[in-house]
């Protein structure tokens, strides 16, 4: 260990004695590592907002839409209650909510606004009572529909946040809205539903109300929202089978974050190209190290000769130069990673990106720099070890 410490000391002294030359050698690995770290970091950071949004939304929500298993024209497919129950019993599913969108109902904040809102219909959604849980969305004010509302078919509604803003709804105020001329009391406002933005301007009522007030004959949902935190994609693939079980009922599924997920994926081709370019820069840096160190061996032949005369073996001499290369690789790697990270930070600040920098990536590319430098140092160190001391010392 002491010997290794002494070798490092000799190598560092050799490098610091020739600062400009050392700086020139260092430029190769610094530029190579910095280029790779910066390019990958900027590429990742440009997708940082999407990734952050994905983390917020989660990627475990599945939407199942009813469809006729045989694709009959003009059908009004539903997902029967028992099919929804089967989906809810799947081991990976934690929550299922069925919804049914009603049509041809004019929704008004007050009677005088009829002309305007007839032209811009508001979606009315009959929903199961656990919608906020399944969608993982809180209420901005008030409460959601509950068991009493369902059992008694109370004329109460929850509205989406955009609709509340549009109607000038003040939190917790006693307010009613007209649904097709029937007054409903607003009991709560649902916060923004990022995965289903159409809900932000919708009115939610119970299935009991849908049957009582709007003559819905079949109170089964047309859509299921399903939370499956584990095996999400596998569950999404299984649901159509679970719903139909060979019968006429069917469903197709999608995971709404899939598109977002795809958008957030960093362009791998670009990344690979960047890595290749950076790798090339590192190789060029390595050639530079080999070149400059080889010249250095010639310049320092007298020093090598005297060290041999003092009892340093060929192996020690080779190791000394190899450690110089190692020190260059380590310094180049650290400085390159630092410069690259600095560039990513600067660009992220300028472009308003969410900075993403992989610490393991920094270590990985710094390690590549060390590897390249050591390989590049093999030739000059071997050359140094092979020098004949008698020739370098020029006796008599």
């Amino acid at each position, binding site marked *: 260990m002491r010997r290794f410490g002494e070798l490092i000391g000799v190598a560092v002294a050799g490098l610091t004695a020739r600062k400009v030359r050392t700086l020139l050698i260092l430029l190769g690995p610094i530029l190579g590592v910095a280029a790779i770290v910066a390019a990958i970091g900027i590429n990742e950071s440009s997708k940082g907002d999407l990734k952050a949004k994905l983390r917020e939304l989660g990627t475990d929500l599945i939407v199942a839409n009813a469809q006729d298993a045989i694709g009959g024209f003009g059908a009004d497919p539903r997902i029967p209650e028992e099919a929804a129950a089967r989906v809810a019993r799947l081991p990976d599913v934690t929550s299922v909510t069925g919804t049914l969108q009603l049509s041809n109902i004019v929704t008004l904040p007050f009677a005088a606004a009829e002309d305007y809102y007839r032209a811009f219909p508001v979606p009315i959604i009959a929903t199961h009572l656990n919608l906020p849980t399944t969608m993982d969305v809180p209420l901005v004010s008030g409460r959601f529909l509950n068991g009493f509302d369902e059992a008694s078919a109370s004329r109460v509604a929850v509205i989406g946040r955009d609709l509340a803003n549009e109607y000038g709804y003040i939190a917790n105020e006693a307010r009613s809205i007209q649904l097709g001329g029937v007054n409903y009391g607003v009991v709560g406002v649902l916060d923004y539903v990022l995965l289903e933005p159409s809900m932000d301007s919708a009115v939610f009522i119970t299935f009991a109300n849908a049957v009582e007030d709007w003559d819905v004959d079949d109170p089964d949902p047309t859509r299921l929202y399903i939370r499956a935190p584990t095996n999400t994609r596998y569950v999404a693939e299984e649901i159509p089978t679970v719903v139909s079980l060979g019968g006429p009922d069917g469903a197709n599924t999608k995971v709404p974050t899939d598109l977002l997920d795809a958008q957030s994926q960093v362009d791998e081709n670009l990344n690979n190209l960047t890595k290749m370019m950076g790798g090339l820069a590192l190789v060029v840096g390595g050639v530079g190290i080999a070149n400059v160190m080889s010249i250095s061996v010639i310049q320092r032949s007298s020093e090598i000769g005297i060290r041999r005369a*003092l009892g340093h073996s*060929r192996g020690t001499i080779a190791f000394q130069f190899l450690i110089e290369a190692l020190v260059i690789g380590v310094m180049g790697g650290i400085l390159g990673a630092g410069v690259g990270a600095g560039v990513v930070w600067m660009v992220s600040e300028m472009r308003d990106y969410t900075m993403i920098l992989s610490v393991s990536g920094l270590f990985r590319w710094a390690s590549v720099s060390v590897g390249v430098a050591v390989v590049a140092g093999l030739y000059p160190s071997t050359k140094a070890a092979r020098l004949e001391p008698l020739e370098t010392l020029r006796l008599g």
Partner: protein
Amino acid sequence: MSSTPVSESLLSLEGVSRVYGEEVLVHALRDVWLDIRAGEFLSIVGPSGSGKSTMLGLLGVLDLPTSGSIRIQGTEVNTLPDAERSRLRGEAIGFVFQQFHLVPHLTALGNVETALLYRNLSRKERRRRSLEALEKVDLVHRADHRPIQMSGGEQQRTAIARAIVTEPLVVLADEPTGALDTQNASNVMEIFAGLRSPERAVCIVTHDLEVAAATGRRISMLDGEIVSDESQVAVS
């Protein structure tokens, strides 16, 4: 200058020849037999091309003979692997060169310490021994100076300190006064004379007959052979 009793063989060449070249052969040394004993202060003299530098390289195990043996205290070293041979060289032989060969980016102390590297010595111990060696050549006050900041005489004294810091059996010097003025040359020769001890020998390769006259044994070389080996009364 008082004579020191001569005892055991420290360094010997036994029938050593050295031939350079492959197609055109140059016989730099022919069947040389030489024994250097503890306590000796000897010189190797001869004109240019006589083979004295080749002999110095072989005595210092910096080069290997084409035939014959080199022995350090009876151990044949030319057949040893490089690492072992280098270790023995570092322990047994101290070199002083005409051109000093100090490492330019190291201080005087750093240059002397270089000889003590890789010997499992603590930094403190290396420093202590190096300062002791510098003190012997009266250069402690220049310990922190680099070669470029020192005179030729001081650089050669630093080189001598480096040669003796390992307490070698033999000090081999190649034209040690060749690059010095008369005063500095005289000082350096005094130091060399003082290095001799009952356990150590000092061997100087030179073409300067005045320098050779200061030693107790003079070996003359010509065309790669020893032509005379005679004891003499040293003239200081």
